[in-house]
Structures are given as structure tokens and as C-alpha cells.
């Protein structure tokens, strides 16, 4: 089911589950061979090969770091830290899973470590209420609204436990299957599914506490009521 919703000036297209973006299949044989060679060269300390790996995967890593950390200020440092970890530990990559899975595992671990460290540090200032550094004064209204919604949603994600947050982001935002996530977070598939279930449930409950998000649900509710036949509305 594809739902096209008009709320104010914002048009949203909510894709049906079967139309969700799948991560592109990159594992063509030639690409795999090429990547394997690059990795083998990285293990010998080949800087050119490492640079290639960095350039090929930096966008994926940055996107995941952004979603996992939710803090624009640390983004660049975290991406750098991920690739430093990759360089240090690539010799431990034995090819038992896809390289992208291993890379995501490293990325998730780096972000979680940073989050744990941040919790033990004193908070000097609150993060600005924007979506990743965007200057809200220079944006059209609909983009401002969207930026606020995104920021509000990251605040909600921040209230989930690290484990639930990680699997929710990997599944819902990165489009990974539970079995792939299980390899990244080193947990059984059943556990991943359970965490996904509870993460979604908690987010639905928290949604009501965020005015920027509750208004979306409110408008959707009003739209549903408006579309309902008169008799039904009266009976409710």
C-alpha cells in the first residue's frame, strides 16, 4: 500500500514494506574479487589500498554514524575513528562475513563506545534544536518543519537503550535484515527481532510526548476521520 499524504505543504510518500529500499547488491563477483584484493593489500599496510577502501565506503559509514550518534558535532571525528579502527584491525577480518557487515560492526562499536564515554562526561551545553547543523533561518517553512521533526525523532531515539536503538536504526533506516543485524550486533536473530519489536513499541509510546511528532499523528488522525463515511464518524 502506498499512502500519499498531504499535510500542510509537505508531501510524504510512505513506501509499503515490500517497496522499502533494499541496500544495493554490491556483491558481484568482480567487485568481490576487487574488494578482496584491496583488503589483502590493506593487511600488508598498503596506503593506496586503504585510501581506496576509505573512498568506497566513507559515505555509508558517515550515514550510519550520523544516524547512530545523532550528534552532528562529533560526526567527522567519529568517521575518522571508524577508519582508524578499520586500519588497526583489518588483519583480523577473515572473510567469514561480508566486508560491509564487518565494517558496520566496527562502526556500531565505535559509536557505542563514544556514547558510553559521553555519558560519563559533564554536559557543558545542550545541542541546538536543529537537524545536523542546518541553519533553520535560511530554510523554507516545510524544510524547517522537517528539520524539527528529524531532530525530535533523534531525541526519541536517544531515549531508547543502545541495543534497541542500534537494531532499530540498522533495520528501519539502513534496511538490513534481522539475520544481517544479528551478525553486526553479535546476537541471535530471535533477540534482534525482539529488540525491534520493543523498540518500535517504545517509540510509538514516546511519540506522544514530542509535540513536533504528535502533531503529525494528530493530522493523520484528522485525515482518517475526514475520509471516514459520515455514519461511522457519527457513531464514533
Amino acid at each position: 500500500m502506498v499512502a500519499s499524504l498531504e499535510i500542510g505543504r509537505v508531501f510524504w510518500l510512505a513506501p509499503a514494506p515490500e517497496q522499502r529500499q533494499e541496500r544495493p547488491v554490491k556483491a558481484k563477483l568482480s567487485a568481490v574479487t576487487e574488494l578482496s584484493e584491496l583488503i589483502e593489500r590493506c593487511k600488508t599496510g598498503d596506503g593506496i589500498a586503504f585510501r581506496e577502501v576509505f573512498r568506497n565506503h566513507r559515505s555509508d559509514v558517515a550515514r550510519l554514524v550520523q544516524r547512530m550518534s545523532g550528534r552532528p558535532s562529533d560526526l567527522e571525528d567519529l568517521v575518522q575513528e571508524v577508519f582508524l579502527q578499520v586500519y588497526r584491525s583489518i588483519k583480523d577480518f577473515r572473510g567469514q562475513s561480508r566486508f560491509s557487515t564487518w565494517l558496520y560492526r566496527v562502526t556500531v562499536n565505535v559509536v557505542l563506545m563514544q556514547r558510553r564515554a559521553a555519558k560519563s562526561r559533564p554536559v557543558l551545553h545542550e545541542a541546538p534544536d536543529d537537524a545536523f547543523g542546518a541553519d533553520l533561518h535560511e530554510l523554507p517553512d516545510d524544510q524547517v518543519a522537517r528539520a524539527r521533526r528529524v531532530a525530535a525523532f533523534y531525541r526519541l531515539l536517544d531515549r531508547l537503550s543502545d541495543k534497541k536503538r542500534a537494531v532499530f536504526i540498522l533495520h528501519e533506516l539502513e534496511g538490513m535484515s534481522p539475520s544481517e543485524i544479528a551478525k553486526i550486533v553479535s546476537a541471535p536473530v530471535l533477540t534482534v527481532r525482539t529488540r525491534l519489536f520493543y523498540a518500535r513499541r517504545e517509540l510509538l509510546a514516546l511519540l506522544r510526548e514530542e509535540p513536533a511528532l504528535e502533531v503529525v499523528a494528530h493530522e493523520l488522525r484528522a485525515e482518517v476521520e475526514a475520509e471516514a463515511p459520515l455514519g461511522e464518524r457519527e457513531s464514533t
Partner: protein
Amino acid sequence: MSGELSPEEQALDCIVAELRAQPAPELDWDRIEARLMNQPHPVARETARGFFTRLAVPAVALLAVAAGVFLFLPRHVATPRVAPKSMAKVVAGPLNGDALALGTHVSSADQSVVVEHAGRARWTLEPHASAAVADAGEFLTVRLESGAISARVTPNPKPETFAVEVGGTRVAVHGTAFRVERVDDRVLVEVTEGVVAVEPTSTHSDPSFLLRRGSRGNFGLDGRTGSVEGNASVVVRDSGRKSRREIARTARPSAAKPETAMPAPSASASPEPAAAPVEAAPLQQEPSISDIESGVSSAVDLMNQCFQEKTQSSSTVSVSTGMTLSIAGDGSVQSVTFEPPLAPAVEDCGVAGLRNLTFARSVEGATFTRVLELKH
């Protein structure tokens, strides 16, 4: 219970879709690259060169000794690592599964091929079959392309440490021994010991079917539809650690099911599903994902309430149990399983409430498991 999403769920999906559509952040890549290249590499290279220079002569000597030892050792001692994407063919004896790299294809001709992962699992590729290693890590996964696989898995406290994927269907071990065969677009599963879960490889909210010892299943390649033969109870057989409650309902005469229909677990006494297709009716093959989720949500709330009411303790008590619900085609809850079991009073309370829970009607019904985390 409607199959439509609630406004809150729609709002969540909309916001998730917005976030998903956001492009990757653009950073100062040149600066990051410069910092990365300046940091580790000169050190690493210098270290590597210095190390090599200092140890060049001993290393050559060691290599010579190793070569000599290799030449004089019996051949079976050295287990060559099979290169990715190569075709592994076995002459005799089991193949060392731990030496098979990700993506390795294994094929059998007239004889079976046995693959052994020491201390973890042993799988047999039956004659004229082919498979590929889809995961060689902690959770072994074999993708069956044609033919049949029999597997015997060493019991492990972690569930699903071994799985066979066929198309979009995933057959994951919870017990010890099972067989999976691909026949055209069908997946035949036979469980000889323990339990296996059959489920789609993709989404998290689809129901998974638990097949117990002695059960046989015939599933589609999507992992969602299928039929069960013999003892069709796809929930629980007798086990000391498990507790199964039948929801007392009169068995309803089920409509003729299509060949792919999975009978509802407790109503699955009919050994063979009828071959005639269902008359065109506005029924879904199975309850929708949102219906299952909202129903499960109600069941979880109910169990939490029962646990609160029936647990008499002044201190904090928390338990974790797996709740398996079997939903019949008419949407009623046919059976519930708690593994490990809960206190009888809590179970009685839960069973009484679940009796009134109704899912959307569907042709097949469904069976699925959720882990409950109850706290008092």
C-alpha cells in the same frame, strides 16, 4: 482489529521514511583523508620495513624449514582454505567447514558431500545438490541452491546457530537434526530431532513457524506459506521446560485451503491440506503484519497486567519467557506456549484474557513467538 495502521504508526513510518530518504552527510573528506593518511601509514610502513630488514635472513631460513616440513608431512594434515567462489569437491571424508570461506560453492555429484564445522555442526549435501556458504561466522548459514541438505547441529545455548536459506525462506535450527530439500519452488523441511523455525529471510514481523520432531513442512520460497504433514503441531511438543496452553475452543471446520496453506497449528489434524484453491474471497492468506503487531502488543499488555496482578512480592521480580501464539484462520487464538513456563496463576490469567483476543481473519492463520520481559 483492523489491518490498517494506526495514526501513530503511520506517523512513525512517515518520519522513518523521511529519515531514510536523507542523503549521506557531506563532510570535508579531503581533510579526513589527509588526517588518516598522515597518522597511521608512515608508522606502519616504517615498522614493516624495519621489521622485515632485521628479520630477512631468519625469515628466509624459517620459510625453507616450513617448506621442508610441508613436503614430508602426510597430505591430510594440510587443509587448504577453499578460495571464495570456488567449487569445492570432496574425494573422501568430511570437508573442513571452517576452511570454507564466505561464498564458497559446494556441489555433489553421485555421492553425498559431508561438511563438518568442528564442535558446531555437520551437514550433508545429498547427491546432485549444490549450496553456498552464506555465513561462516558465529551463526553458520548455508544457502541451498538445489537438492537437499541434512544437518546435525551440536546443541548450543544460543539459538539459531545454524541455518539453511532457500530463496526467501530461512530454516534455522533450535534443536539438533533436520533435513531441507529444494524441489523447484518448494522447500521441504523434515525435523528428526529438536525444533527448527521456518521464516522469511527479510522482515522481522512475519510469523515464524516452529516445526517439532517428527514434523514435515512444505513451504513456498517466500517463507510465509506452507503446509504441515503428520503431527502438525507447529508449536510445542512435550518438554519439561515448556508449557503449552490450548485455548478451549471448538475446532471450527476450516475452509478448503490452497496447496500452500499452513493449517493453524492446533487445528492441523487434517494431515493433507486440500488441493482445491480457495474460492475468491476477501480474505488475506495470513494476518497482515500490522494486525499481528497490534495483536501481539495487546497480548504483551495483557501478560504484563496479569504478571502485575498475580505476582505477590514486595521486591522487584522480573522474568523473561518466550510466548508462542497460534492464530487460527478465523482470527482466534488457538494455543499459547510459555517457554520457560510462568507461575500457574499468571498463565491462567493470561490464557483467560487471550481467549478474548481476536486477530483479523485469514486463510492460513499464523504462528509466531515473542520474548516477554515481565517486571513486577
